[in-house]
């Protein structure tokens, strides 16, 4: 974690190079000799999986961009040509489309893990906030990528999402016209979305570097939530963490490959295979699954402006999590009451996702309101109060003690 690198290249050429640019030492100290807590479980492999998925999206995306045309007249057609004519185009596009879904699946697991084990707490607040920024950028990127297909769902998703800004009092309509570059979603909109969809993944990569940097300053959290105290608590990143990450990633890739090769359109919507038609709204507009919980929150509030505020607030509130959780015990493992509320929170998020697919009528509206209330209550009521009233279980003296006791 600290101190100078022990990296000593034996090769003379490498020594010459290392003296001038010590990049070998940086890699060695960050990913080889880097000390990791010995008790990391498989929930900790999702950071590596996410880095890999970002790589997959960037590589497949750059290749798709070589064949895609961002113009309203041919965008849809060029996507179909990728599917039918381009060599392996079908594979590259299915990897990219399902890769986005897998990326979000992994990021949700990664985030829930962070909440369960209190990974956002001192001294990792900045690390957490950088993660929230990455998540926001991912949402923007995913949304704009979905629009590029220029099917019916693309077009109407673009219309509905950009119209969220029309709720801003006074300047809303001016902002929406500015976003569109016209009087409705059209060619200028598609062009700028394409430009930004190409840019944002590299911005994400930049923030990921900061995220990893902040991680390496604070050190990794671990299932006990207590810091490593001696050499008995840690193992070197390579081979221990690298191997575990590689195994976790392989399992994750099986799931990814299953979607790509067996059910590539399962997560999509059939209406998006109809070319965009500005004159007809599809009978049912549903966002991609990874936005559904927020969509349900938006719809559960009968006032337009308040609904939009709740939507953005539900994401923005994550940035304040380090200060909303007042408990000094990090890991949910030693917080019996927190654990129950946490799993209820997971159920609420999944439930909101399910409600996002339902027409906002009758019982669904009531359920969505209850779950929306709990979503915010978890952050604004439960977490601040639990820190005061919860009786936590005794913490082990060290990581190694907790591991060895469990074995005994």
């Amino acid at each position: 974690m600290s101190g100078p690198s022990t990296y000593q290249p034996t090769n003379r050429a490498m020594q010459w190079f290392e003296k001038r640019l010590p990049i070998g030492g940086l890699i060695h100290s960050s990913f080889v000799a880097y000390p990791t807590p010995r008790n990391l479980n498989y929930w900790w492999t999702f950071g590596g999986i996410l880095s890999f998925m970002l790589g997959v999206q960037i590589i497949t995306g750059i290749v798709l961009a070589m064949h895609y045309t961002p113009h309203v007249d041919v965008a849809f057609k060029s996507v179909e040509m990728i599917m039918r004519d381009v060599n392996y185009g079908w594979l590259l596009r299915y990897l990219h489309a399902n890769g986005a879904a897998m990326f979000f699946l992994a990021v949700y697991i990664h985030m829930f893990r962070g909440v369960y084990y209190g990974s956002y707490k001192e001294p990792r607040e900045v690390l957490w906030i950088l993660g929230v920024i990455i998540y926001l950028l991912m949402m923007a990127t995913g949304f704009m990528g979905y629009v590029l297909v220029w099917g019916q769902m693309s077009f109407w998703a673009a219309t509905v999402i950009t119209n969220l800004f029309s709720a801003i009092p006074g300047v809303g309509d001016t902002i929406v016209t500015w976003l569109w570059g016209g009087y409705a979603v059209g060619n200028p909109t598609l062009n700028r979305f394409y430009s930004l969809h190409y840019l944002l993944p590299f911005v994400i990569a930049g923030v990921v570097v900061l995220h990893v940097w902040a991680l390496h300053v604070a050190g990794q959290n671990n299932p006990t939530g207590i810091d490593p105290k001696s050499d008995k608590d840690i193992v070197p990143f390579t081979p221990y963490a690298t191997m575990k990450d590689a195994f976790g990633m392989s399992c994750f890739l099986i799931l990814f490959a299953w979607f790509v090769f067996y059910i590539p359109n399962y997560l999509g919507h059939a209406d998006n295979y109809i070319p965009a038609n500005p004159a007809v709204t599809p009978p049912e507009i549903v966002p991609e699954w990874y936005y559904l919980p927020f969509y349900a929150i938006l719809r559960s509030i009968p006032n337009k402006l308040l609904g939009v505020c709740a939507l953005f607030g539900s994401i923005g509130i994550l940035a304040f999590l380090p200060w909303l959780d007042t408990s000094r015990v990090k890991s949910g493992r030693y917080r019996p009451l927190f654990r129950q509320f946490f799993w209820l929170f997971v159920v609420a998020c999944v439930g909101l996702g399910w409600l996002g697919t339902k027409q906002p009528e009758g019982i669904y509206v009531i359920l969505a309101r209850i779950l929306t209330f709990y979503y915010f209550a978890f952050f604004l009521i439960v977490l601040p109060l639990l820190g005061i009233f919860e009786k936590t279980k005794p913490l082990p003296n060290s990581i190694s003690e907790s591991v060895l006791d469990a074995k005994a």
Partner: protein
Amino acid sequence: MTTVSSAEHSRRDFLYIATGAVGAVGAAAALVPLIAQMNPDASTIAAGAPVEIDLAPIADGQIVKVFWRSKPIFIFHRTKKEIEEAQKVDVASLPDPEPDSERVKQGHDQWLVVIGICTHLGCIPLAHQGEYDGWFCPCHGSQYDTAGRIRKGPAPKNLFLPPYAFLSDTKIRIG
């Protein structure tokens, strides 16, 4: 070289602040074209010129959809029954109170011209559907009456009216 820090404001402080201010103004000015380029360009604005619509072929009770500035415009040739429905509603009971007379041009009660975009999140409502004989939005369930006024659902406003004028009894110009 030694720097002497003084509590008093010096000529140098002034130069620093003046230089910084000019730099900030320059940076802000450089943002203007970068932001303005995203607004509708000249060709988009030119294509948004007024359009003339002949109303003669529109039958009683029919709703036609035309486009102006890429926005769908509904032209509704209302029947007597539909006009009455729109007029007899208690205006105060509406979510966005507007009497029918403010929704149409005087002397042209049978013609309702509205922008066909749901004021909730921009979907296109379906004509002749819903409980009020007007429009029903399939996205989030907003319902509009025969004067295009919001009656039920999450939309906050009545369907907007485009700027238009009657050139003759059977011809309008939108824009």
